[in-house]
């Protein structure tokens, strides 16, 4: 009997600890997950909704999260990735990078002409990105949205670190070639 009561107290304490841990990890990872989703989803409201869905799922599954199996980063980005895939499946769209994104210009480009050129370049680059295969897109998005290491990307995509490095090199070169070719047209 005593053991049972003690086990319940321990379990409760463990849950309290895990809730605290979740709150800390949430603070750290929410902006990162949002950046990842906003890279893939054009609509700001939708990106916010999906971020919220990701953290609801994470909270429900958090007791089953095992840090010895995977880091929280890998775990949460896997949930985020699957949530985006599910979103595209529901909307019957191809899970590509959006190409019709609103281009926000900065004061770094003073003249309207420079702004227009930058906007056009960005649009084109996004277009080239959307033509890559899914794995290449994922590697690029995980790299550029949050600066993940190749090992972390590999854990999310179930690839080796060196494989991710090769994919990134090949993809960046592919993008550069398409971009340079377009500029010379």
């Amino acid at each position, binding site marked *: 009997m005593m053991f049972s009561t003690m086990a*319940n107290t321990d379990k409760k304490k463990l849950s309290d600890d895990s809730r605290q841990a979740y709150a800390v990890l949430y603070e750290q990872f929410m902006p990162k997950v949002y950046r*990842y989703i906003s*890279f893939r989803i054009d609509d700001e409201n939708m990106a916010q909704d999906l971020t919220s869905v990701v953290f609801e799922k994470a909270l429900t599954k958090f007791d089953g999260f095992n840090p010895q199996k995977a880091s929280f980063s890998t775990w949460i980005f896997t949930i985020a990735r699957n949530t985006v895939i599910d979103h595209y499946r529901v909307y019957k769209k191809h899970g590509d990078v959006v190409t019709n994104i609103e281009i926000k210009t900065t004061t770094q480009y003073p003249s309207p002409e420079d702004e227009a050129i930058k906007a056009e370049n*960005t649009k084109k680059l996004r277009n080239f990105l959307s033509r890559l295969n899914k794995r290449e897109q994922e590697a690029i998005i995980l790299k550029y949205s949050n600066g993940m290491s190749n090992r972390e990307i590999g854990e999310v995509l179930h690839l080796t670190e060196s494989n991710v*490095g*090769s994919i990134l090199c090949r993809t960046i070169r592919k993008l550069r070639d398409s971009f340079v070719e377009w500029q010379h047209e």
Partner: protein
Amino acid sequence: MNKKPNKDKQLLENLDRIVAGEKLKDDSGLDKDTKTALELSREMTSWPKSPSKEFKAQMKARVTHQLAEQTEREAKKSSFWEFRDLIHRPVWRFTIAAVIMAIIAGIIFLIIYLLNR
């Protein structure tokens, strides 16, 4: 022969610096293609947006609420288990057994009394 792996290594190392928000130390040793690739990389790191303050506040409130709800649910659940543990204690077992025995004895006594009337 080793030119391509070296170029790849240079590209990846500089890419990691760019995504970490660092400046490239010295790009004089890089070829034109790698430089262009890194320029495009720098451009792409500026694409993802950060969440707005309003959204951050909204999300924080929602998560805090969800965590509080979970705590409450578990508190209810654990008070049920504590009650269950309580009724399994020897003192309570003895009391419950005594009450049941008293009820049975009462019923037997009542039956005998009614039959003898």
